Structure formats: C-alpha cells, structure tokens
C-alpha cells in the first residue's frame, strides 16, 4: 500500500487550539494593550499612563510590588538553594520524601495559604503570641508589606526547590574532590565551581520567582482585602471594585505589570549572553 499523500485535511485539528488560545489569551492581551491607550470617549490618549506616573497612590503600588517581589524572590531563592544543595548529600529515600513534600506544599498558595498565615501570624496568631512573649516581633503586622514578604517568601521556597533540584545534576561529584586536591576550600569550591555552573539556573529560577510574585493576586487579596497597595490588587479594584471602576486605567496598569515581566526576562537573557562571551 502506498503511504497516503500528505494532505492538508488534518490541519483542522489546529482550529480548536487556535480558537481557544485566541479567545482566552490573545484577545484579552490585545484588548488590554489597545485600551490602555484609550480615553473614556474612545479616542487615543497617553492619559492613562500619565495618570499612573503622576499619582503618588499608583507609584507606591508599583514600588510596593517591586520590593515585595524582589525580597521574596531573593529570600525564596536563598532558602531554596540552601535546601537543594544539602538535598544532594542525603540518602535517596529521604530525598524522595522531601521532594514529594515540596511538591505538595507547592500547591499551598492563594486563599488557603492566607488563612493559614492569619492563624499563625495574625494579630492573635499562635506564633505571634509566642514570639511576643519571647520579646521578639516589635510591632510586626502580617497585613503590611513586611508581613506579605513573609507569606510570599513561603510560597516561593517550594517553587525554588523544584526548579533548582534538576539544575544540581550539572555538578559532578568528583569536581569537589578535584578542587579539594588542588587546595580549594569549601568557600573556594562554591565561589569558583558551583556558582558559575549554576549561574544560568539560578538566574532563570530568580526570574520565574519574580514573575510569580509580581503577578500574584489571590494571597494578598485574601489576606488584606484591598487594603495593601500592590499593582495586581489595584487592577482588581479597577475592574471589579465597588467604587472606582476604570477598565482603561486597569489596562494601563496591566501593561506596566507586563512590561516589568518582559524587562526582567530581557535582563536575564542579556546577562546570560554577556556571560557566555566573557
């Protein structure tokens, strides 16, 4: 039997995919982009962006989102790196168990996570009381940026571990012995061997963590209603709030958020390329 002539009939298989992606991803993106430049009367304007950049309120939201994402990603990466580097040295059984647990806690985010933190670190939380009794925690408040940094760091740790774990496979065990033989200390080995090799993975993980924190909405919303000033919270209030509906301003704010995500990715790419030819 002759193999069937390549026909184009199977192309209809792509139609549902294109329709779904178009309707629920591309169309909203397009709408947000176009409407961010649209005045209330439908004409073209830069007014939405001007409004954001000249409003102290929105500038603080941008600033809060930036620092919250930066701190929580850095802390999450650091703690994740610590755990992952130790993970390679323990028995396979322990390792499997730990990865399974991390996988599970990676799903612990959003509303349930916010509620759990209210219980332990809220005003009457068990840990708040414990630490207050011990004299720590001077005026720590879960419902502020500092409080949110703790919660965000918590949900960044499992993601950091899951992303970094495979990267450590790039390290060969005998490299440590080799560098030892050449007289390197543990510190030298980390600085001159481990970190340069892991650098791309660390950077890539950091970028994903940043994106994860920048776009996060549910945790902050469940924790503080709309009281904390972050970009996603402001977008939510502008498209579904009770008082201040302004979809076009929300669109411009969305673009500000997406531009940050794109910028982070570009800087990541640029750093990687620069390193390669260094």
């Amino acid at each position, binding site marked *: 039997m002759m*193999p069937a002539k390549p026909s184009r009939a*199977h192309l209809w*298989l*792509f139609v*549902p*995919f294109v329709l*779904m992606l178009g309707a*629920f991803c*591309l169309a*909203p*993106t397009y*709408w*947000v982009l176009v*409407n961010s430049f649209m005045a209330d009367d439908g004409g073209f304007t830069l007014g939405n962006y001007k409004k954001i950049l000249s409003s102290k309120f929105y500038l603080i939201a941008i600033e809060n989102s930036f620092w919250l994402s930066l701190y929580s990603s850095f802390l999450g990466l650091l*703690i994740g790196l*610590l755990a992952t580097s*130790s993970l*390679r*040295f*323990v028995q396979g059984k*322990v390792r499997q168990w*730990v990865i*399974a*647990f991390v996988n*599970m*806690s990676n*799903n*612990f*985010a*959003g*509303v*349930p996570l916010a*509620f*759990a*933190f209210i*219980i*332990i670190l809220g005003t009457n939380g068990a*840990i708040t*009381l*414990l630490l207050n*009794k011990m004299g720590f925690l001077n005026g720590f408040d879960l419902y502020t940026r500092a409080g949110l940094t703790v919660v965000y760091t*918590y949900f960044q*740790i*499992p993601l950091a571990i899951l992303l970094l774990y495979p990267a450590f496979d790039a390290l060969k*065990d005998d490299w440590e012995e080799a560098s030892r033989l050449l007289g390197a200390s543990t510190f030298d080995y980390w600085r001159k061997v481990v970190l340069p090799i892991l650098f791309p993975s660390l950077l890539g993980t950091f970028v994903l963590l940043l*994106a994860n924190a920048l*776009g996060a*909405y*549910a945790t902050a919303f*469940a924790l503080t209603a709309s009281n904390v000033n972050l970009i*996603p919270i402001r*977008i*939510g209030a*502008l*498209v579904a709030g009770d008082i201040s509906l302004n*979809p076009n301003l929300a669109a411009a704010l*969305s673009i500000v*958020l*997406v531009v940050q*995500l794109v910028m982070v990715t570009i800087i990541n790419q640029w750093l990687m390329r620069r390193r390669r030819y260094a």
Partner: protein
Amino acid sequence: MHKQDPRQGLHLLVIGVVMLILLVPLLATFLYSISTSWGATILPDALSLKWYVQLWSDPRFLMAFGRSVFLCMVSIIVSLLVIVPLAFMMEYRYRQWQKIMDLVILLPFAMPPIVATAGLLQIYAGSPVMGTPWILVGCYFTIVLPFMYRSLVNNLRALNLHDLMDASSLLGASSFQGFMQVVLPNIRKGIASAWFIAFSLLFGEFVFANMLVGTRFETLQIYLFNMRQTSGHFTSAIVISYFVFILLFTMLANRFNKT
C-alpha cells in the same frame, strides 16, 4: 552519590529546618481545625472533630465541593480533547516547528490571571458565557496548556511514533484508526499524569473564578473565601480538607510520572 559525607548531619539539619518552615503553617492550621477554641494562648484549649462534622454536613460546602470537581473535570476533558491531537500532530508531522510551539504555549504565562481578567471582563461583558462556569473552562485551558502539552509531548517522544503509525498503516488502519487504537493506548500514562497535574492546578484556582463568576457558581475556593468571617476553626477545617484532597492528587500524579 556521596556515600560517606562527614557533614551528613549538617545537611539533614538544613533540610529539616527548611521542611519545618514549610510545615508550620500546615501544622498550625491542622491543630486549629481540631481544637474547640483557641483564644489568646499559645496552645489550644481542647481537641475535637466538631468542625469537620459541621463542615462535612454543610450542604453549601458539599455543593461547592461538587461544583469544583465538576468544573475541573469538564475543563480537563475539553483541554485534553484539544491538546492531545495537537501534541500528536506536532510530534508526528511538524516536529521542526516544535521549538516555536514551545514558545506559543508559554504565552499564557506572560499574562498573570489578574491581567487576563481585566481584558476578559470587558470583552465578554455582554455575552451569555459571562458569569457562568463555561467561561472558566476557557480560562482553565490556558492555565493547563503548558503543563499538559509538555507532559504529552514528552510521552509521545518516548514512543517510536513513525514506526507505530507505519506498522498500523501496513495492517490496513487509517491514520485516524492508528491514532485511536495504537498511539492513544500507548500514551495513557502521559494522559493520566497530565490529568492529575491539571487537577491539582485547577482545584485551587481562585482569581478567574472570583473575578469572572464569583458567587454565581460558588466553587470550593470561593466558598472558602466567603467563609472568612466565620470561625477560624471552621475555615481551617476547609483548608485541611482541601489540602488532603490535593495531597491525594499530587501523590497519584507522581505515581504516574515515575513510570
């Protein structure tokens, strides 16, 4: 692997501390859910299961639970119907385009759900799907797309797709029959794994559900959020029940992923 590392104890300690940090909120929530009351003290007053009894006999909770399961199932089935043939065609005929496809499926990643809802709320404002679970099926498709697609492509790549299709065609099967009766049974593990990953992702989805539908179709997450003013013990029982369910699904996903 290191067999005799002198710092074994130190490594175990580091892992232990990090795991403890991850465990504390869960443990506290669990303790809270099984204590009768827990006022301004470090430990609860007395233990009981009354919050679980109250929760699991609340028709509103059971309805919300059922809605969440239903919504996840429908979304996963629709996503599989779209993505399985797509992954197959890409591996079988258009492998040279796979690199581009890898980028395309990541598009939803660049759009945080809160940004997507800003657009969706306006675009579908007047349409009949707005405010119904059906719009969520489309949104959930974009959430599971990258995970499902990669999982299926990895599975398809492990098969010898062209040999399988050629053999079935030599035996007189059409391409469609070959796909249905030879390829599909061979990727059932990939499909199962994609199914469980998707379930654990979607079961906890809050942003789309809250912004686009809200109380008109109260899913488990919406129910949990709406219960925030009630007893913290009660909401803890919801969180733990939800988590046990998620745990079950991640365990099943891991089992199917291993082989």
